[in-house]
């Protein structure tokens, strides 16, 4: 599967070039290639007319490419000046660290970008916004020619975004080329000179920002018709299974309310960082919450731990399959039985036969392509692994199932299998919350869609009301003209 194919981009010095696209459109792959984290299969890269290869992150540094991410990398124990100059501190003639020069230079760069931070401030005490600014200062002192900003505003408040943009404009005025990756259409219009749109790993369009309306941007980003990949069958919608009232975790999401009924698939849409996974994590008892009410099958439920949630029939398929979903070195059967082991091991003793039969049942039902139930999951493909995670949660026979990006990074065939399974489960009366960044999936599968924006519910749309424009409009807060 290709993450990215045939993208032609020309980034000009002194210009801000925005890169937009839905999740999975290939933006992060492109960023990874430019920063030397991943290698392209073909194509060429010219810097000031000279062909270059970016073999690793160091090579990117040397070529004057700097990148800043949503969550900046810092040394929390070191002070501001040292964070900016880590790995390339100025030296005095004696070969010692030239603190004077380092602090002077830091002060100069910071005042250049009008940031009021002392070089001696310990970084542990700084917020994300200030850490972002450190990254910019780092890029400046390294004399970067290309600065890649990957969703730099995701964790910033509007005022901080304004401050950041003022600095970005300054940088570009100085001749730095800037690649600005973002979901927020307003910000893109506000800051960029040129906009490139990626869709499904392909380069769709590059236009001057001034000529591109939000509506047009959305059309280019979505740009496909819904096909028959998403067969949500009619199911009888029953009693409310999961009810949230004013569910809140301060600073992360607030006042989130929705209801999911038996047999219903509720889509949870929104941009990255809108708080969808965070709501799910608090609901499943992994993160704490500060307020609100949760009811399962009409009776109050207070999420405390995943164990407690499981006992009440709530299951959560997490977004990060490798880190949260599976124990890579363990067998298919072992992973499948993980959440319901108490039931399979009376008296505390394992019954390998029962575990194997359980796994085999799911291998057949979900068409899991493994040589046997004893095969370690690390030897399986991404899609097959995802089916194993799904088996684990289905084995728990939940009444409410939260699926967080269940088809991320899986092949088309598996995707169809997963969708069919979800649909069948709903048909059997399971209440499902589907978190997905993929609009067609969300629109195709869901009976209803709740859209989150910045931690609050921005819209609730029925299947008939929902279309890509409306969902994106609610998610971005921008009305297509």
């Amino acid at each position, binding site marked *: 599967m290709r993450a990215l194919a045939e993208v032609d981009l020309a980034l000009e010095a002194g210009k801000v070039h925005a890169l937009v696209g839905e999740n999975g459109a290939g933006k992060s792959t492109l960023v990874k290639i430019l920063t030397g984290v991943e290698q392209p299969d073909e194509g060429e890269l010219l810097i000031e007319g000279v062909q270059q290869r970016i073999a690793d992150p160091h090579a990117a540094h040397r070529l004057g490419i700097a990148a800043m991410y949503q969550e900046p990398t810092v040394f929390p124990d070191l002070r501001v000046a040292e964070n900016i100059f880590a790995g390339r501190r100025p030296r005095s003639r004696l070969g010692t660290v030239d603190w004077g020069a380092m602090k002077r230079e830091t002060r100069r760069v910071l005042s250049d970008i009008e940031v009021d931070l002392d070089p001696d401030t310990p970084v542990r005490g700084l917020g994300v916004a200030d*850490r972002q600014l450190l990254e910019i200062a780092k890029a400046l002192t390294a004399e970067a020619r290309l600065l890649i900003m990957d969703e730099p505003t995701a964790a910033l408040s509007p005022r901080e975004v304004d401050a950041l943009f003022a600095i970005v404009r300054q940088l570009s005025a100085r001749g730095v080329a800037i690649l600005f990756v973002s979901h927020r259409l307003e910000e893109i219009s506000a800051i960029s000179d040129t906009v490139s749109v990626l869709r499904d790993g392909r380069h769709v369009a590059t236009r001057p920002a001034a000529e591109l309306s939000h509506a047009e941007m959305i059309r280019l980003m979505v740009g496909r018709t819904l096909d028959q990949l998403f067969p949500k069958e009619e199911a009888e919608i029953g009693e409310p299974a999961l009810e949230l009232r004013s569910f809140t975790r301060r600073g992360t999401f607030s006042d989130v309310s929705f209801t999911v009924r038996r047999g219903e698939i509720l889509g949870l849409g929104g941009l990255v960082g809108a708080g969808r996974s965070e709501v799910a994590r608090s609901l499943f008892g992994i993160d704490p919450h500060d307020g609100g009410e949760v009811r399962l099958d009409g009776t109050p439920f207070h999420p405390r731990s995943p164990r407690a949630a499981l006992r009440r029939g709530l299951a959560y398929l997490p977004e990060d399959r490798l880190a949260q979903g599976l124990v890579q070195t*363990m067998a298919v059967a072992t992973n499948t039985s993980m959440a319901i082991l108490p039931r399979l091991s009376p008296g505390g003793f*394992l019954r390998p036969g029962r575990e194997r039969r359980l796994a085999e049942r799911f291998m057949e039902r979900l068409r899991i392509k493994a040589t046997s139930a004893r095969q370690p999951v690390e030897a399986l493909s991404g899609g097959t692994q995802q089916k194993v995670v799904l088996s684990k949660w289905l084995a728990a026979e939940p009444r409410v199932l939260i699926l967080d990006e269940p088809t991320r990074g899986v092949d088309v065939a598996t995707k169809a299998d997963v969708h069919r399974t979800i649909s069948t489960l709903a048909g059997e009366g399971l209440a499902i919350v589907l978190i997905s960044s993929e609009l067609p999936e969300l629109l195709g599968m869901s009976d209803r869609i709740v859209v989150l924006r910045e931690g609050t519910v921005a819209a609730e749309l029925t299947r008939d009301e929902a279309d890509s424009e409306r969902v994106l409009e609610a998610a971005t807060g921008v009305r297509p003209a």
Partner: protein
Amino acid sequence: MKALALARATFGRWEALLVLLIVAAGAWSTTLSPYFLDTGNLLDLLTPYIAVGLLALGLTFVVIAGEIDISVASTLAVSAVVLARVWDAGANVWVASAAGLAVGTGLGLFNGVLVGLLNLPSLAVTLGTLAAFRGLAFVILGGEPVTGLPEGWSQLGAGYTGPGELVPIALLILLGFALLLGVLLHATRFGRYLYAIGSNREAARFSGLPVSRMRVALFALSGSMAGIAAVVLIGYYGSARADVGNEFLLDVVTAVVLGGVNIFGGSGSIAGVVLAMILIATLRNGMGLANISADTQGIVIGALLLGAIVAGNLSQFARTRWGGRARATGGRGEVPRSEEVAVSSKT
């Protein structure tokens, strides 16, 4: 070679290697002393290392779960001196033993609470308690040993049974616990959870496993084994001293690591650890026959410990570099996390 094939069929590759090494060490010992292959001598091989073995069994659980407990020998010492004191105060053997066992479990629980509930790194915590518990042992007993322990007790540590009074009772105790803990580790839910936590703690938590409780229990188990080791060891020596087990730590850690338990957690077997113990005992016995002093033996055991880890790292390196699928994590292109959570174990 037939033995190798058999071992290989029975255990994994690492265990087969251990069997081979044991045979080699045994052959070397035979050249040093014709009595080495004597049944009585063979059965007695492990007797001086029973306490080490019991501690290693407990530590195996801790390491498989991705933690470390270097305080085990000090815990043993506190158990031993409490036991002796209680007996000295007039209690009977059983009450005293129970007290020693309870103290060991309690100290393990202390470590467990700090690691499992407060999320402190087990390395730092047990480094501290390694010193603290040893000090406690001295505080409780002082520099003088308690001697004159009753006969029944020394039967446990130094007695023999079976045909011709050839089988050391302590050996039976060790093998009994190896069997018991082997079942616990390999055939129960508890053991399965340990492997899961040691392999991927986050996935374990997301799967609803009682991670904190397990981590507390782990150290309590390690402490209990130290308590049991204390009972046997006092029987073996016939006396209790505060510095008892002072030199055990190296052998214990070596047995676990040499036994094929991954020092970073997630894999290992009781069978491997038992084989490693036999190897260490055979080697030490052979070196004893060759008049190599106990302290020089430390050089060999230390080298063995380092060799075991380096060999493991090399095979891991070879696998990721030249064969099969690369592991999903790591690699050169790894992007650092914004801020590493300060509370992560150093091991």
